[in-house]
C-alpha cells in the first residue's frame, strides 16, 4: 500500500466520519443514506490510514509496524471518530523518543537498582527508548512463538488479547517488565499523543479534543466559568488553528 493511498484514506476518515457525527444527518453530506449514527457506525475503519509521509527516526520498520498496530487497538477508529493511528499518535511517540524524555534525562538513573514495593515507583534502569526496544521485541517474540505471526500481522481481536495479557502481566520477558512497558510507557504515551497539542505530531485535527469537548489552549473562561452549560466554542491549538 503506497503512502498516497494512505493519504487518501486518511482524508476520507478525517473528513467524513466527524462530519457525519457533527452534522447529525447523512443528508448533510449530500448523499442519501442511513441516519447519521448508523452511518458512523457502519463506516469502515480506513484500512491503511496515513501518517502524512512521516518517516520514523527512532523506530525500526518492524517496531513501527507494532506501534501503528498497537495505536489502532488502544484508541480505535470507531463510531466516535478517529483513533490514535489516524490522529498521528505513532508519529508523536517516535518524535518523543528524540526528546530528553526518550533518554530519561530528567529522571534519577543512578544505581544501584533494586525492585521495591509498588508504592516506590519506577526502579528500572531502562530509559523510555530502551523500554520500547525491549518491550516491542518481547511482545513480537511472544506472538511469533505462540501465534506464528508478528503482533502487527494479527487480527484485531488477537491483538487486543495480546495487549490485555501484557497489561496484566501474563506475558513474561527476561529483560523488561511488559506490564510496566504497557502501562507506564505505551498506553501512557498513546494518551499523551492523542490529547497533547497537535504540534507534537499527534491529536491531528484536534481529534482527541473534539471527542471529549476539550477546548485546547483557548485559555480564557472568565465569562463562562460560572455557567454550568456546554461551552460554545471549538478547540484552538498552540499554532492558533481552530478545530
Amino acid at each position, binding site marked *: 500500500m503506497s503512502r498516497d493511498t494512505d493519504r487518501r484514506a486518511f482524508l476520507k476518515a478525517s473528513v467524513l466520519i466527524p462530519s457525519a457525527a457533527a452534522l447529525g444527518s447523512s443528508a448533510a453530506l449530500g448523499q442519501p443514506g442511513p441516519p447519521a449514527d448508523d452511518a458512523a457506525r457502519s463506516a469502515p475503519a480506513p484500512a491503511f490510514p496515513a501518517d502524512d509521509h512521516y518517516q520514523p527516526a527512532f523506530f525500526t520498520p518492524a517496531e513501527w509496524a507494532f506501534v501503528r498496530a498497537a495505536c489502532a487497538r488502544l484508541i480505535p477508529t470507531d463510531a466516535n471518530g478517529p483513533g490514535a493511528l489516524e490522529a498521528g499518535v505513532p508519529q508523536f511517540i517516535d518524535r518523543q523518543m528524540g526528546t530528553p524524555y526518550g533518554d530519561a534525562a530528567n529522571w534519577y538513573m543512578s544505581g544501584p537498582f533494586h525492585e521495591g514495593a509498588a508504592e516506590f515507583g519506577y526502579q528500572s534502569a531502562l530509559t523510555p527508548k530502551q523500554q520500547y526496544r525491549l518491550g516491542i521485541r518481547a511482545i513480537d517474540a511472544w506472538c511469533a512463538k505462540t501465534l506464528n505471526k508478528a503482533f502487527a500481522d494479527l487480527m484485531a481481536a488477537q491483538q487486543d488479547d495480546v495487549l490485555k495479557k501484557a497489561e496484566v502481566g501474563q506475558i513474561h520477558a527476561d529483560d523488561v517488565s511488559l506490564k510496566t512497558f504497557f502501562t507506564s510507557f505505551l498506553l501512557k504515551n498513546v494518551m499523551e499523543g492523542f490529547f497533547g497539542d497537535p504540534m507534537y505530531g499527534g491529536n491531528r485535527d484536534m481529534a482527541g479534543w473534539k471527542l471529549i469537548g476539550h477546548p485546547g489552549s483557548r485559555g480564557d473562561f472568565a465569562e463562562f466559568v460560572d455557567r454550568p452549560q456546554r461551552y460554545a466554542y471549538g478547540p484552538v491549538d*498552540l499554532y492558533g488553528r481552530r478545530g
Partner: protein
Amino acid sequence: MAARNRPVDVVIVGFGWTGAIMAIELAKAGISVLALERGADQDTVPDWAYPKVLDEVAQSARNGLLQNLSKTTVTLRHDKADLALPYRQIGSFKPGTGVGGAGIHWSGVHSRATPEELRLKSHVTQRYGAKFIPEGMQVQDWGVSYDELEPHFDRFEQVCGTSGKAGNLQGVKQAEGNPFEGPRSREYPLPPLKDPPTSVIFAKAARELGFHPFSLPASNASRPYRNPYGCDLGPCNFCGFCSDYGCINYSKASPQTTILPALKAMPNFSYRTHAHVLRINTSADGKTATGVTYVDAQGREVEQPASLVILAAFHLHNVRLMLSSKIGKPYDPETGEGVIGRNFCYQLISSVNTFFDSQTYINQFMGAGGVGQAIEDFNADNFDHGPLGFIGGGVMWGRQTGNGPVRGIPLPEGAPKWGSGWKQAVKDNYLHTGRIEAQMSNMAYRGAFLDLDPTYRDAYGEPLLRMTLDWQDNDLRMSEFFNEKLKATARTMGATSFSGRMLKRGDHWDTRAYQSTHINGGTSMGTDPRTSAVNKYLQSWDVPNLFVLGANVFAHGIGANPTGTVGALAYWAAANIRSTYLRDPGPMVRA
C-alpha cells in the same frame, strides 16, 4: 581551590517565595543582599506567555517547571528497617526549580494555620489531657503564637492579592466567611473568585449536611490589584492551567508577579542563577556561618562569604544543607535525640471523583488553582476529638483547579482503560466530572524523619536526603472519619457515581501518584533546643547568624495548605531580623 567572591552582608540560598520575601525586606534595611538560585532565570514573558505555556505535554507530562531529578533527588522508605529507594520520577510531590521556585507552579490556595495548631501540644493537653497523645507522637508547640503571626499572615495576603471572604474580623464572626478561622485584622485584599460548577454543587451539599462552606482563599486575583510593593496583578480568567504551570495572566501570585519587579530595582540587591549551593561554611568552632560554597554554571566551586546566611530553598534542600553542613545535631530515631531531620511530616489526601449525568456540565477544563468552596468544620480542633480518639484534622473542598486530558481523565469505576469502551467513557464523562477532596494533617512521629542516604549520591557527589515516612494509625483513622464525610457529600451532591482514592487503615504512603507538595518539618521551630532546630524567630540555635525558612520549620503537619503560613513565617523572621538582630547580632532567644 574554590574561587572567592567579594563578601556580602546577606546571602540567601534559594530564590523562590521565602528567598524573595527575605531579600526585599532585608534590602529595604539598606544592607547588601545576594540571592543564589540553582536553576535558570524565568519570567512571565517570555516563559509563560500565551499560548506557549498552555501545553500539557511540556508542563504536566514532562514536568517542565519541576526539579530535574537527574541532578538531585531524595530516597524514600516507609520504615527505618527498610532499604530506601530513589525518587526516580516525579510523583507524590513536585519540587520546583529556577527563579520563583515552587511559587511558579503552585495552585494558589492561600490559607493560615489555626491558632490551636501553633500550640497543639498545650491545647490538646488542656482539652483532652496528656494521655490523649498516643505513644510515639511528637506534637509540640511552635513557639510563635497566632497573634504574633497575624500581621505577617495579613502582610503576605496583601502582597499576594489574595481573594477571599473573612469569617472572623477581630473576633466578630462574618457571614459567608470561614467561621472557624483565627481572628483577622482586616478583610482579604480582594473579594472571592466566581464559583465554578463543582464549587457551587459542593457548597449546596455541604450546607444541606449542616457544614459551613466558604470561598477558599486563593492567590488567584479576582480583580485588578496593585500590591504594597507597587506590583500589578490582572484578574484571573480561569484558563485551567495553574498547578504545573506559570500564569499567563499575572493573576496567580508568584515572586515574579508580586515581589521581583520591586526587588530587582533595588541597587543593593543582586542574584545569581545556576548557583547550586553545596554547603554552609562555618567558623572553626562551628558557631558562626561564614558564607556558602556553590557550584556555578561552568561547574566551578565558588565561595561566597557573608555576615548573615538565610536558608530559603525548598523544604528538602534546606534540611539536607543543614545535615551536609553539619549544623545542629542530627536526629536519631533510636534515642529520640537530635533535631535535624526530626518531625518530618506530610499531609494525607483522600480524593473522590464525582460523576454527573449528561445534563450537568462541570467543564473541568475551566478553573483556577485556588478557586473552590471548602469547609473547616473538621479542621484542627474545630470539632470534639474526645469520642473519636485521634489528633488532627483537615479541610474538605470542592475545588475546580482546571484539568486537561493529558493530566488524566477520571472515569467511573469499572470503565475500560483503552479501546472503544474507553473512548465512549471519556466522551460521556469528560464534561460532567468534578472532584472533592479531604486534605488532612499528618502528625509528627518518632519514626518519621530525614537523614542522609548512605548509598545514593547526586550529580555533585553529595549524599541524597533520605525520607522515612508512612501513614500511622492516628492519621488513617482520621482519614476513615473523613471518608464518610466525603461519601455523604458526594451522594448529597447528586453524583450518579463516585470513586477515588480514600486512605484507610492498612494503606501506605504511595509515592507514585501526585497528592501535594506539602512536605514539612525536619528543622522544626520551637522553644526548646532539644526538640527544635530553630527558635521562634527561625534562627538556628547553634549558629545565630543562620536563619532557616520554609515549611521545614513546621513543628508538625497542619490541615490547611502551607504556603500562607510559610510566607507569614518569612515575613515574621524578616521583621525580627530588622528590628532586633541587625541592631544586636547574636542569639535572639537564650536557650
